[in-house]
């Protein structure tokens, strides 16, 4: 087999391979470190952190669905100060490359979070989560509103300056994803994370009420993979130069390559780690083998490959 260069870049950040944790699916990193060295991943995308500690939504917080699951966590977390004090030093100690995910209830909160992170060393990029479906008021999902999305990213860009790459995480639950993606890129996002979970609901027939404590939840897992591949494909087609971190139901090397061919420069794995703690690390190897089998010597040659075949025809 030929050797394959798996390295990738997102904005000005370099990663040795394109496999990342998905925000909210690796907790602080310590939990997965029992199963493999975090350093062996492309990077760790941390759970979206807010200004203050947050208890999240009541239980039940999850429901298994066909080839997927709904979650309704509600951004439970320690708050930015405790996160910077405890979680970042741990990840640095593990020599993990870190993408910090931030979430806010207001445009100002995002800027505040960015300001606190500006002086923290050891971070490769910031993911701006403007699309968490598990907030109290669905109207607060910035990524459903082109204008609010732009204003959040603009605020973070101004605060953080030109140093750290900004990745805007978007929701597929919109009428025109490409126009929202274009808006946040114009406002200063260096890259995009596609997709957040898809809003869903399960009704419990014993109680005849919504099963989840938060009523609605985010659908993840293989059930949403075709939606994610479509979203990455559409956005890459419209903006081929903007790096995309692709996610949504990726469970193995085959799925990762599908996402890369659609246009992703990196791939995040979330729900698959719940069922297989080794999913992230086995995907790195599977992807390498698969690229090699297909004759690729570099990951970069495979990014967006599905578009090139189309043009050639």
């Amino acid at each position, binding site marked *: 087999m030929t050797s394959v260069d798996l390295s990738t870049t997102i904005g000005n950040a370099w990663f040795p391979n394109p496999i990342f944790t998905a925000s909210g699916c690796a907790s602080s990193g310590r939990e997965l470190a029992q199963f493999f060295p975090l350093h062996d991943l492309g990077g760790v995308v941390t759970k979206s952190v807010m200004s203050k500690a947050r208890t999240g939504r009541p239980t039940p917080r999850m429901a298994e669905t066909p080839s997927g699951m709904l979650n309704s966590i509600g951004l439970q977390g320690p708050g930015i100060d405790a996160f910077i004090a405890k979680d970042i030093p741990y990840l640095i100690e593990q020599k993990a490359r870190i993408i910090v995910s931030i979430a806010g209830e207001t445009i100002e909160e995002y800027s505040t979070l960015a300001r606190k992170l500006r002086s923290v060393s050891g971070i490769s990029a910031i993911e701006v989560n403007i699309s968490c479906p598990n907030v109290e008021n669905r109207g607060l999902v910035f990524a459903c509103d082109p204008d609010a999305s732009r204003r959040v990213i603009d605020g973070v860009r101004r605060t953080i300056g030109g140093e750290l790459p900004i990745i805007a995480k978007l929701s597929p639950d919109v009428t025109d994803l490409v126009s929202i993606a274009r808006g946040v890129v114009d406002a200063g996002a260096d890259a995009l994370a596609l997709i957040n979970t898809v809003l869903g609901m399960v009704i419990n027939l014993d109680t005849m009420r919504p099963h989840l404590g938060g009523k609605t939840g985010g659908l993840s897992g293989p059930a949403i993979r075709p939606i994610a591949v479509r979203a990455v494909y559409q956005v890459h087609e419209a903006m081929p130069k903007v790096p995309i971190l692709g996610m949504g139901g990726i469970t193995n090397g085959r799925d990762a390559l599908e996402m890369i061919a659609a246009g992703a420069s990196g791939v995040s794995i979330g729900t698959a780690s*719940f069922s297989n703690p080794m999913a992230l690390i086995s995907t790195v190897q599977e992807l390498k083998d698969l690229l090699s089998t297909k004759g690729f010597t570099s990951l970069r040659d495979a990014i967006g490959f599905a578009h090139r075949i189309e043009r050639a025809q």
Partner: protein
Amino acid sequence: MALINKNAAQINATIVGNQRVGQYHQLIINIGDLAQVCKPGNFVAISVGGETSGMVLRRAFAISRVSTSTTFGGTMELIVAPHGQGSRWLCAQPEGATLNLVVPLGTAFGIPTEPVQVLLVGGGYGSAPLFGLAEVLNARGCRVDMLLGASTAGKIYAPMEGKRAVNSLRIYTEDGSMGQMGRVTDPIASLIKAMDIAVIYSCGPMAMLSAINAITSKSDVIHQCAVEESMACGIGICMTCVLPVADETGAVSMLRSCIDGPVMDGAYVQWDKVGQPL
């Protein structure tokens, strides 16, 4: 900070026994040397449905007992109620079938350093891990009494060999089909008064654990309970299995029942806030 699940490993393991016991299945699984690091209270997370299954999440089961020196090497025993799609699949697996496991996970029951009197209370198949616990407590010199309860006789799990480790066993069913008619929690308050019980260990439905805690909170008895909340991962990354638990200062936070539990000190669990927004 202590390592999380430092003994846990993901392995493929062979089923060496699967038999029906009342309404439950007793599964014996060969887990090799991992049996040596499993403690009463720990659980296992099992992939269900096979490779092409649409069931993406592992199922968590309490380890009821381990043996380190069977003819198969180290084994663990699970008592499984086939009441959902995943557990039905598991109960249908024949001897010789391979399962993918992550084990051992979670906290274990604390064992007293002194040979004190203890009471074990189990609801339904929640009794299963208590028999393995009873053996360990018995070996420590503790006097072990046990109460088991269920809605009906078929849901009582009380194996003959398990009874050897307990001084007394009383059974309660709500329909009176086995033992005394009533709830397993009925005699606890009077037993606490009559005996010098230092610790109550409990495993079963949350309503039972909460009822026990309402009794122990009025006494000096320590209540170690194995909690139940639906889990997606079992290893601490999904944040779905949380329960409201107070710390020493009284501050309440949502702790994961997979890594801060399943065994928790009942006195700190905020039973009235379970399932409520904080």
